[in-house]
């Protein structure tokens, strides 16, 4: 049973004098607990597919079913609630809030997800995830004092601290060197295995694909034949 399924998804971007069809009828099923990697050349539509699946932008046609509910039929407020409570996000850049410490970044996410955890439980969860990403020692640091790799690890911790069902990662290693990239990928796999989090990831780096359970090759807005 897939946790997320995409059926006949289309996306057309319109400007004043031209229309560009970026997604041309995508059908895809994401299995719970797996890491699925979307890969392909620049402009193939992989990031557009990920952001539409994550409810960050609307499709032109087609449906997305998440846990038996049509995301594409929901209003903005309902989609925002799903994003806050059931999804986690990691982007190419860490995008941390500059005036919050590492620990406060995680607390913000817990507040956003409206979790009814006790103070002790919150502390415990923060400790556990920061230990996992090896950032507990930096819990009182501000983003400005962290390296690129450290920021990305905090971003990953923030994305999973509220125990989401799915993690969407858009080129999570693109701004990191190869050593840091492998560390981040190992971390994503650990989180997926230990916390049963389904990961949908966009990447164009071949070495990161070895961490994926399923690889979806995209080309010119359609899923290519090289599906692994």
């Amino acid at each position, binding site marked *: 049973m897939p946790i997320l399924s995409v059926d006949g998804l289309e996306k057309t971007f319109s400007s004043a004098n031209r229309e560009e069809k970026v997604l041309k009828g995508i059908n895809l099923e994401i299995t719970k607990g797996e890491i699925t990697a979307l890969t392909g050349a620049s402009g193939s539509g992989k990031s557009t597919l990920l*952001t539409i699946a994550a409810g*960050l*932008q609307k499709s032109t046609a087609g449906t997305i079913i998440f846990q038996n509910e049509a995301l594409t039929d929901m209003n903005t407020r309902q989609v*925002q*609630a799903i*994003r*806050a*409570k059931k*999804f*986690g*996000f990691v*982007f190419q*850049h*860490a*995008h*941390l*809030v*500059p*005036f*919050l410490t590492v620990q*406060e970044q995680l607390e*913000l*996410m817990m507040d*956003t*997800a409206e979790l009814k955890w006790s103070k002790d439980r919150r502390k415990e969860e923060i400790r556990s995830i920061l230990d996992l990403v090896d950032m507990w020692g930096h819990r009182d640091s*501000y*983003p*400005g004092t962290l390296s690129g790799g450290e*920021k990305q690890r905090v971003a990953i911790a*923030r*994305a999973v601290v509220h125990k989401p069902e799915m993690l969407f990662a*858009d080129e999570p290693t693109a701004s990191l060197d190869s050593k840091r990239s492998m560390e981040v990928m190992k971390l994503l796999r650990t989180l997926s295995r230990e916390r049963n989090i389904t990961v949908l990831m966009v990447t164009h780096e071949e070495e990161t694909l070895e961490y994926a359970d399923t690889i979806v090759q995209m080309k010119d807005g359609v899923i290519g034949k090289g599906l692994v």
Partner: protein
Amino acid sequence: MKMAWKEMVKFKTRYVILGSIIFLISLLTMIIAGLANGLSYDNASLIKDIPEGTFYMEAEAEGLYNFSGLNEKNRAEIKEAVPEVAFFSIQMGELESEDGKRHGVAFVNSDGSLFPRVKEGETIVDDSLMESAIKEDEGLTNRLLDGELKVDTFVEQQKFSHSPVAFVDRADFDEMYRTDEYQIAFVEGEDAPAVAGLERYTNDEFMNTIPSYSAEQLSLNMIVVFLFIISGMLFAIFFYMINVQKIAMYGILKAVGVKTATLFRMMWAQMAIITTISLILSVGLSQLLALIMPSTMPFMLTAGSASMMSLVFIIIGFVGSSVSGIQISRVEPMQAINQGGV
């Protein structure tokens, strides 16, 4: 609230600058409002201290009290309609003290029920004349009066058209101004009946018949209104600038599920903190100024007026920041994701 405070602490300088500007503008507004109130009281405390009611003047006087004259017939008609009516007259004039100095005064003569009763040959004067070395029992003269007016006592803050009031007996007033008519009738309460040939005025309307009163108040109140508008625009511009810098952050926060209302609450909390601190300082300082300002500078700012102005500032701050906050509701998560970030 916590996020709002954390941001303000982290980026102190920018919020201290905004707070300082709001403090200075609110202080200036309160000083000018205090001066407007003070001048208003200095101009018309004689009338301001009268309870709310209705003033009658001759219709032909067209709102100029010194052209009004209520004859026996008019007075009888008003008295028949409202037995508790009070009659009085005001004329600008001068008194010469024993040291030969002349002092501009507003002579007020009443039938005794509204203002202090004075015996013939005596006067009760505003205590500002004490500063001109006029003493009790001193004999004051006027060119239009044969005898002297002996100072019976002083009264506190009784001024008209910025001149100290001198209450005199009707006989002395008649001798100086050759009239046996009162100019004005006053009835307490709002249900005063209409009387043929007479025009009715509320307290505020009557005060505006005082030469220079409305012009003076209008100019000062206009400055106060402009300062309120400037502070509202300042809030809008400041938060606009801050929000422009935070567009990417807002987009990401929206992407991870933070509600737009939460971001608005954060901005309102910052506005409320800055405004409250600025207003506490400016109200405190303006009250201190009220204590130390020289008596020649009329300044009056009651705690009630200061609180009301503070409330207006908070409302303006709320509106100004909300207008600039429209940007927040327009931010698209995708816009931020496509940009770089911390």
